[in-house]
């Protein structure tokens, strides 16, 4: 085969590969847009102030998602409160402090495996530990703890990836100037890896906000027409309310479900937006 023919053939491969790639992108975009449009078209007309400040009701047009979104808000608050410090500190320890031996390796493998465990398993474990052994009841606190366990592995892995990405030369420079390990972590490692950690945290929280199965297992409720006063109070969350409405026979309830879906999606998008802003600001500040 002549050189020209070889070049031509390879260029053709190149062309077809890019065509296939574009098709793949278009396909996933199309599927996503269809889903979003369908949800938005049905759900957005249902949104109103009343929908946000009413409790569930047997009349679809009077029903609202107050207890559901307040529940989601508190559960996410508790989850973030517990999982973020635990996750980041564990990740830092494993990457910066832990001796590299068999035990550390064993722990690392297990953490990576944990992030792939189905959420219902966490629900069952939480039912046994938090509800039955520790008597925390079917409360907001139990839900927060359960979801924290669920997303801890994700935060730990993300923290480690972010910390690992910092060049060793930065650490060495810091030590050379006489900084202790803690000073190095505090002034260099943490600030530089903050963008990556924040992204991991938000991805983890976005997963938690849509979880239904482990919360149903620990005893989240469906009808609840009052707001929690303390973290020991019963609760419901948006995905559970959504699921209940979509499984009702009357079409009016399906519209409510779409409305709740739009709100849930908006919350997730907001959280992602915050992550992107944080990451952008941090990146701008770092000058090596």
């Amino acid at each position, binding site marked *: 085969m002549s050189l020209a023919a070889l070049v031509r053939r390879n260029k053709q491969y190149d062309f077809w590969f890019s065509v296939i790639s574009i098709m793949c992108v278009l396909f996933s975009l199309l599927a996503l847009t269809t889903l979003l449009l369908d949800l938005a078209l049905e759900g957005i007309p249902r949104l109103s102030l009343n929908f946000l400040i009413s*409790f569930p009701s*047997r009349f679809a047009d009077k029903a609202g998602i107050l207890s559901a979104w307040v529940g989601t808000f508190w559960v996410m608050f508790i989850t973030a409160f517990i999982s973020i410090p635990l996750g980041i500190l564990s990740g830092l320890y494993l990457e910066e402090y832990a001796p590299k031996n068999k035990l550390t390796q064993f722990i690392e493998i297990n953490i990576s495996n944990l992030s792939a465990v189905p959420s219902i398993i966490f629900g069952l474990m939480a039912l046994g530990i938090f509800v039955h052994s520790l008597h925390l009841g079917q409360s907001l606190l139990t839900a927060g703890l359960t979801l924290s366990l669920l997303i801890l592995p994700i935060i730990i892995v993300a923290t480690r990836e972010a910390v690992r990405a910092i060049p060793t030369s930065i650490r060495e420079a810091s030590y050379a100037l006489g900084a202790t390990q803690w000073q190095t972590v505090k002034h260099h490692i943490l600030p530089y890896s903050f963008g990556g950690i924040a992204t991991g945290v938000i991805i983890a929280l976005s997963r938690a906000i849509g979880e239904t199965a482990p919360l149903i297992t620990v005893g989240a409720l*469906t*009808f609840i*027409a*009052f707001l929690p006063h303390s973290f020991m109070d019963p609760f419901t969350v948006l995905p559970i309310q959504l699921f*209940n409405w*979509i499984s*009702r*026979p009357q079409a009016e309830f399906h519209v409510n479900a779409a409305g709740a879906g739009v709100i849930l999606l908006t919350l997730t998008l907001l959280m992602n937006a915050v992550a992107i802003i944080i990451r952008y600001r941090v990146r701008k500040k770092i000058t090596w």
Partner: protein
Amino acid sequence: MKSFKLYVLMFMVTTSSVFAQTRLIKIDGSSTVFPITEAVSEEFQTLKKGTVQVTVGISGTGGGFKKFCRGETDIQDASRPISKEEMKTCKDSGIQYIELPIAYDAITLCVSQKNTWLSELSLPELKKIWEPQAQRKIIQWNQVKKEWPETPLKLFGAGSDSGTFDYFTEAVNGKSKASRGDYTASEDDNTLVLGIGQDPNALGYLPFSYYEANKAKLKAIAIINTKNKAILPSLKTIVNGAYEPFSRPIFIYVNVTSLKKSEVKDYVTFYLTQAQTLVPQVKYVPLSPKAYQADLTRLQKNKIGTTFGGEAHIGMKIEDLLLQTH
């Protein structure tokens, strides 16, 4: 370090904040009964102006009974009578209960509105279609009856975890959970509505309320009853027992210890007196006024236990059962 102390302090303050001492009624159980209990709870809370709080979960009849028998809930929603096993669990943990039928549900056999040739079915025909031996053998309509077309038989039905499945299989095949497996099974009845509605060769069974909400897509099939009459499900035929054997009662079970709390007693009394108006609003079939009266008597006389002995009675009239027990 200061910020860390603040962090811990904040968390402790928020977690241990006031234990609000409002009175709480805990209900869990079947998602079939849920719409009725939701309606009653909504009205009851409005009536009590926030002094009593009611929570309702949907762990399913089986899952709910587990909690009920551990004494974690005050009231249990059930789409079937308590089973023998559950009776034993409750007995072992010393939980006594009062059984109160609160409405009817009717399993409705449906075909698509596009189906022009099927309007009634007999029990032997249903058995021929649904029995376990029919699996992979009865696959065309004309195999059931010669006059029917030579088109594929497409079946839709409840998933094996639902009370509807238990009841239907017992009524048709004589044994709970005995069914052919090669049909489209779904726990989500709306999926069944879509499936049956699109296909002129489809046949499926659904709770009555799902048929009612989707009359534009579905056609109900009349069932030939023991008196040899083809009966369509309707409010009238379900209550007077003509639509048999597919009309069944649904229940609430009340923990006797919980009943000593005035708010629980109030709630159950309210439930039974308001059911007549609230049940139709959520598209279920109410019992007769006489039956609710019998329920109230049961409650006042503190009549403990079940009248079913752990089995579903097929094709019974709730009125007869309620009256026979005292």
